[in-house]
Structure formats: C-alpha cells, structure tokens
C-alpha cells in the first residue's frame, strides 16, 4: 500500500485523519522502534486509503495492480524496456560484426542455424541473429518513443490551441486534422516518407509521429471544450484569473488524462507503423541497423524458404511488444476512467 508512485507535489502521506496514531513519538527507540514506527505508518496509510480521499493517480495504480491484464501488459513492457536499455550487456555479440564461422557456411540455399555460440543462428549476412534481435528492441523503443512523443507534443499543441481559442481557429485546425484523419494512417505515413528526398530513421519517426497528431489533437480539443464549460473554469474567471493561466493551469491539466492514456495505445501503433514502413522498404536504408520491421521485411521475406525463423522471430517480437503496450494502455484507460471509481 505504501506506493512510491505519487505525483509531484502530491499530498504528504496521509496519516489517520483525526485518529491519533499510537506510539508515534518523534524520538526513535533503536532499530526495533524504527521498524515499529514504519509499520504503524504503513497501517495508518492503509487505513486512510480505505476511507476514501485517495488521489486519482494512487487510485488508478491500485486498480491497475488488481487487474491481471495490466500486470501482463506491464510485465511485457517492462521486459522490453529492460532488454532495450541493457542490450549491450545482454547481447552475446556485436550486432554489426560479420563472423567468419557464419559467413563461410553461407550459401544461396542455406543459412547456418542455431549453434552453441550463436543461439539463433546467423542472418543472411553472417551476423549473430540473437544479438540483432536484442539490439532491435532498442531501435524499436527509440522509434516508438520518439514518434509517440513528437506526435503527442504536436497534437497537444494543436488541440490546446483549438480548444483554448475556439471560434474560427478551432474550425480551421479541426478541418485540417479531419483531412489527415480521412487518409488511412499507413497510407499517409507512406506518402510522407515518399515525400522526403532521402529516407532515414528520422523520416520514419516523423511520418509515424505526424500520422498520430490528429488523434491527439482531436482528443485534447474535445476535453478542453468540455473543461471550458466547467464550473471551476467559471470560478477562475470570477476571480479574474488571466485567460492564459486559465488555459494553462485550469483547462489543460484537467484535459490531459485522456491524452496520456492514448499515448500508451499510440505507442503500440507507432511500433507497428514503423515496422510496416521498414517492411515496405521505406525505412532506414542503413543495413547495419538492427530493426525488427526491417529484419522481417527484407531478410525474413527474401529468405523465408531458406530459414523461416528469420521472419518468425522479428514478427513475434513485434506482435508481443505491441500487445503488451495495448494491454497496458487499455488497462490504464479503464483505471483512470472516473466512471469506474469505487
């Protein structure tokens, strides 16, 4: 119950409201006393939690912990992030190096399979497949996070401007997002990548980000408009709070929850879109870069009859990670939804 996840400036740990806590003297009485004090603190927190008055975040976290779907999703996401961060420690080999032991066995219709030194065998260029898979997590995380963050930032900017100003600004911005929403997302992403003169990792990231902008913008604009009508915004106006502060302090923070949840869901889509672009050959042209979509699209497809594992493993990795983020995102959406509170 003593959960470390609290927002910045979150309330001090609540002790029992009016109930005096027994044995809570300030002077410590050795280790045993300290431990007892800690236990009492914990109990006090637990009992106050049962009496309501829990912050939205803490309540949501509690709800998430009870939800098996959330736990599965969080585990997948957690493992994925760990693998991505510690890729250099986990990977047995350099993902770029070509090994003589592997290259000398490469022929048109055979690619070396698993051996004790190379658990997943070789890729078509004689590099260690397992290491490339592990480094691929890193690349996927990088692309997913950046694409989501850029999309989130632009979407929040547009949505906030539309929701804050209303009127013709709102109309113009929302018609623009309508145009973007009218195109199927992958088609739009392909168009954007094709428009770039030279494709690189960044074109993929930007294309995927921009595809997600209208979704965020719409979502935020909607809840900003709802906030505009709310009593506390009227109350803030009645206090003479400046319009800028009303938007930034009163409307925006209250509208962000939906957007944050959407971001987790978008993350899964971003990974899939980036993989799809790589698969279609519109991704990063650097053959040294290990990327799941690229591995699936180029190597996996081309050598599918020789060694189908080259396609299976990246595909499986993409599916599982996307599933993890979707599960976590859905569970978060449910947990934060005020209709589900208590």
């Amino acid at each position: 119950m003593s959960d470390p996840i609290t927002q910045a400036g979150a309330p001090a740990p609540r002790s029992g409201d009016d109930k005096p806590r027994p044995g809570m003297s300030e002077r410590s009485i050795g280790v045993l006393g300290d431990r007892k004090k800690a236990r009492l603190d914990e109990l006090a927190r637990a009992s106050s939690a049962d009496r309501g008055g829990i912050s939205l975040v803490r309540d949501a976290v509690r709800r998430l912990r009870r939800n098996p779907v959330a736990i599965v999703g969080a585990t997948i996401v957690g493992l994925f992030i760990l693998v991505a961060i510690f890729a250099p420690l986990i990977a047995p080999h350099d993902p770029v190096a070509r090994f003589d032991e592997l290259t000398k066995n490469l022929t048109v219709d055979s690619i070396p399979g698993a051996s004790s030194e190379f658990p997943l065998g070789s890729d078509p260029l004689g590099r260690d497949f397992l290491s490339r898979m592990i480094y691929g997590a890193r690349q996927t995380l990088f692309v997913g996070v950046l694409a989501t963050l850029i999309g989130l930032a632009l979407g929040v900017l547009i949505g906030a401007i539309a929701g804050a100003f209303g009127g013709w600004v709102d109309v113009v911005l929302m018609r623009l997002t309508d145009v973007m929403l009218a195109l199927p997302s992958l088609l739009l992403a392909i168009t954007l990548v094709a428009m770039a003169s030279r494709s690189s990792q960044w074109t993929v990231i930007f294309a995927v980000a921009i595809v997600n902008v209208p979704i965020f913008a719409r979502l935020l604009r909607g809840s900003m408009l709802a906030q505009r009508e709310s009593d506390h915004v009227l109350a803030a106006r009645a206090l003479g709070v400046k319009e800028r502060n009303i938007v930034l302090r009163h409307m925006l923070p209250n509208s962000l929850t939906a957007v944050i949840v959407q971001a987790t869901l978008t993350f899964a889509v971003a990974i899939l879109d980036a993989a799809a672009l790589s698969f279609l050959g519109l991704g990063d042209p650097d053959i040294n870069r290990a990327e799941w979509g690229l591995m699936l699209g180029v190597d996996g497809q081309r050598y599918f009859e020789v060694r189908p594992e080259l396609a299976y493993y990246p595909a499986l990795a993409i599916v599982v990670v996307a599933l993890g983020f979707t599960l976590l995102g859905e569970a978060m959406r449910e947990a934060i939804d005020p209709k589900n509170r208590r």
Partner: protein
Amino acid sequence: MSLLDVRDLSVVFQRRGERPFTAVDKVSFTVEPGQTVGLVGESGCGKSVTSLAIMGLLPKRGNKVTGEVLFEGTDLLKLRPDDMRDRRGREISMIFQDPLSSLNPVIPIGIQVAEVLERHQGRDRKQALRESRELLDAVGIPDPQRRLSEYPHQISGGMRQRALIAIALACKPRLLIADEPTTALDVTIQAQILTLLKQLVDETGTALVMITHDLGVVAGLCDTVNVLYGGKVVERARRHELFAHARHPYTHGLLNSVPRLDSPRGERLHAIRGSVSDNIPWAEGCAFAPRCDNVVDACLEGPPPLEPTATGGDLRCNNPVSEEVAVR
C-alpha cells in the same frame, strides 16, 4: 453613493432562429457598503443570470445585456474586458453553488488560494502560500498547513466551501456575490457556512449579495431582500418588514409554503399552485397572475409598476395582500 447600483439591468438570450428570451427584465437594486442584500426567487427567475451579468461572466455570444451596473460610480458593463478582469477577485468576488466542481480538481487547495493573491496582489508563490495558510485558518479549516497540499476531493464538502470563501475573500473585496452558497451542503454545514459568511462580512466590511431560494438563509443574514419573479423584482423590503408583512402574493405564498412545526397535525403543506412555466410575458400583464390568488382584472391588462410602499420598500402588485392577513 451606493457601492453597487444596478439600474434597469436586462439580459436577453437570443439564438438565431429562436424567439428571444428575457431572463432578467429591468432589474434595479442597490447595495450599500457593508450591507447584505438578498436576491430571492425560485429556479429560473433570473437570480444567477443577474449575478453573472454583474460579474461580466455571461458568454460573449447569444445574449444581450443592457442597463447599468454602477460599482462605485463606474459602469462595469462598459469596462474593457481587461479592466473588468482586474476587478474580479480583487474588488468583486463570487462564490458558486457547488464547491466541488468550482475547485480545480488537479491543483492542491493551497495553490488555488495562492493563485488569486499572486494575480491581484503581486505576491510571490512563497508569500502567497503563507498568506493562504492564514486565510484557510481564518475560515475555520483545521490543520491549514496540511490542507494547503491536499486536493479538493480529499476534503469534505463543508471544508471545500470554506476554501472557496477563503479564495473569494483573499483580496478583501468590497463586494461578494454568493450564488446559493449553501445549496449543495447538508443542513448542519449550511448553518456553519452562513455563520462564517456573516462573521467575515462583518469583520471585513464587505458587502454581500446573497442569491438564494432559501428563505431561512434570508431570515438569518440579509438586511434588504429583493424578491424576483420571472426576471423582475416584484417586492423589495427590509428583512423584518418582509417576514412580518409580505405584501406581494408571491412572497406571501413563498413564506406560507415554509413548513411549520406549530401547524396542526394532519394539515396539508401550503403550496403556490401552478409552476414557474405558467406565466405570461410581463408586457401583457403580471407574470404571476396565472398562479395568483389575488388576481384582479388589471393584472392582465399590463405590467403593474414597481411602487414605493409606506414601509420604505417597493412593491409591484395591483392587489397586494393586506397587512392584517399577512401573518398567518
């Protein structure tokens, strides 16, 4: 000079393709410094719209506000939006009905109190927070230091309304408009909040406009009472006059419909027959005529004028309740 002098204030809501609706119809009243004035009436009689019009908080589109709202001689309706914004919260404050939804749910109480001080008094965050603690203490919130960092959903309804009062009075405004401040609270808390308001208003010399449908609130608090019906003032009187000798049949009906402990067992509760929607436009006659027991022919021929009474109030009625029967 009166602190607030509302003259012929009208608010007409108009949407394209629809008939205009007059929510407030030439309402005039004054508030002297330090005085408590009540605006009383049932739902839909224009109480809240009046207060929002005074504050300049009605939506920009879809309505037309005419008349004058003189605050210390300045017409608030003619002020530039920026100037009006500078006055709101500093010279005129407002308390709303529902304390939970009037507080920002994602910001701690302390910051919300401090925000006003920072905005109007140019305090920095640290000093504003220190003053906020004193303000919370002054409105009777226990353990104010801890409340500063708590969120609105963590404190009780009465405490939320206290916090709102603290916010409204933070800059020591000269006029406070309270729009049904006790409606969302249970009865025991209502009494506490009213006592607190009365005490603070007395201490700081703030004038109070109390908007309510609760005659009990009026009885305990207001010096002068304006009774509104259908957007017009129908009776204005000093508190004791009003309760002792309500002249307008509507006011009379309202007072009679308050359940009494000393009424005989088995007696039915009194009610004003009909509902607010059974009215006629003021232009054609008295809006209350269809529900009135004292209706005479003149009531349907044109709007009765608001005329001064012998006791120093004003009355808009052709056939008022006679003083003898006024007290049941």
